[in-house]
């Protein structure tokens, strides 16, 4: 091995990056090369000094800041899921609130208009009838399985009791000829019905799923019995 070669291997040798045979060749070359021996000692010394430096752990403040961010992000994602905004992204766009049976179409401005009317009409009929829920339970583990076999997808059923929206039950509506899962939650004196369907299969095929992805209707309990 000539000296330029052994010179380039000094640091790799210190760092244990040479193969066994390379190391052996380097050590043999070193015997006849005082320059490289000096280099080796210098490199080892620098390595040793740096490794004596105490590690400075992340400050508690930094750790706390990151923890807070992570909790916020995880919390926001849970909120998105509750709003069914992730896989059920179809739901987020339209939230329609009718304050009474005499709800105003004008309050729906910008969110679908005529197409939405069809869906709303179904809600109003339902709200006026006795047809509140087909499965009455505040337990999501009762409501969710109830949909199995009745519709061809599994809607997410969330327990929102702590958020002030206890589950009332579920039912199946017919929207545009397709069965749609409806969850009914209660909030104070109001009932809130959520229609849920997978984003990739909008119930109103042929129309933009973004136009009327979902509807939630609140009616006073007096008129929603």
């Amino acid at each position, binding site marked *: 091995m000539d000296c330029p070669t052994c010179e380039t291997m000094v640091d790799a040798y210190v760092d244990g990056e040479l193969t066994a045979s390379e190391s052996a060749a380097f050590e043999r070359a070193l015997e006849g090369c005082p320059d490289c021996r000096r280099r080796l000692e210098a490199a080892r010394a620098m390595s040793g000094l740096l490794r*004596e430096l*105490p590690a400075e752990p*992340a*400050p508690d403040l930094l750790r706390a800041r990151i923890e807070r961010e*992570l909790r916020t992000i995880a919390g926001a994602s849970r909120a*998105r899921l509750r709003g069914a905004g992730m896989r059920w992204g179809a739901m987020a766009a339209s939230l329609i609130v009718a304050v009474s049976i005499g709800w105003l179409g004008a309050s729906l401005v910008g969110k679908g208009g005529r197409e939405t009317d069809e869906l709303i009409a179904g809600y109003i009929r339902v709200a006026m009838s006795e047809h509140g829920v087909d499965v009455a339970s505040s337990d999501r583990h009762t409501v969710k399985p109830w949909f199995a076999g009745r519709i061809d997808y599994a809607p997410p059923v969330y327990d929102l009791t702590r958020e002030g929206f206890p589950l009332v039950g579920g039912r199946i509506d017919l929207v545009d000829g397709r069965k749609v899962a409806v969850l009914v939650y209660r909030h104070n004196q109001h009932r809130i019905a959520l229609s849920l369907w997978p984003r990739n299969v909008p119930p109103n095929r042929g129309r933009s799923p973004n136009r009327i992805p979902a509807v939630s209707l609140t009616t006073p309990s007096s008129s929603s019995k």
Partner: protein
Amino acid sequence: MSDAPKPDGGTVGRFRSVVLPHLDAAYGYARWLTRDPVEAQDLAQEAMLRALRYFHSFRGEEARPWLLRIVRNTWIDLRKRNGAEKLPLEVLETRPAEGPDPEQSALAGDRRRQVAAALAALPAESREVLVLREIEDLSYKHIAAVLDLPIGTVMSRIARAREKLAVELKGRLERRDHGLPDL
């Protein structure tokens, strides 16, 4: 990253167990890159959040080099944002250099302080490769991944950086022995 999936609770949970344990390493590297404890915290935090956003592309490789690479790229971006790249390197590198403050006591403490100051005084290119090798204890392969360089380049940079450190340290110790103030 606008088309990247938003991290959900499960992702955050996996991130906690896979990446978060390397926060000390991320901060340590940030500390030596910035040479400023406050900037280092900002950099480490920004890098951690970026890592979470990129976590969907994490393929189960070693998490520490993966994270340190993000720290480095974040640092470069932050410097660009702050217009630091417009300054000549000399100006950047002659800022008051101050490494992590080791124990104050005893001769060992003094030597460590000199070593830390010498390391902090090195140009970023030499400084970071030594930090990755000696303090983060990464292999050449992992250093190459962090710096996005061929292994051969890593090897020659380490050799050069050790030489620079030796010169810097020698100069400091001589100044000290002659009662001259630190640079």
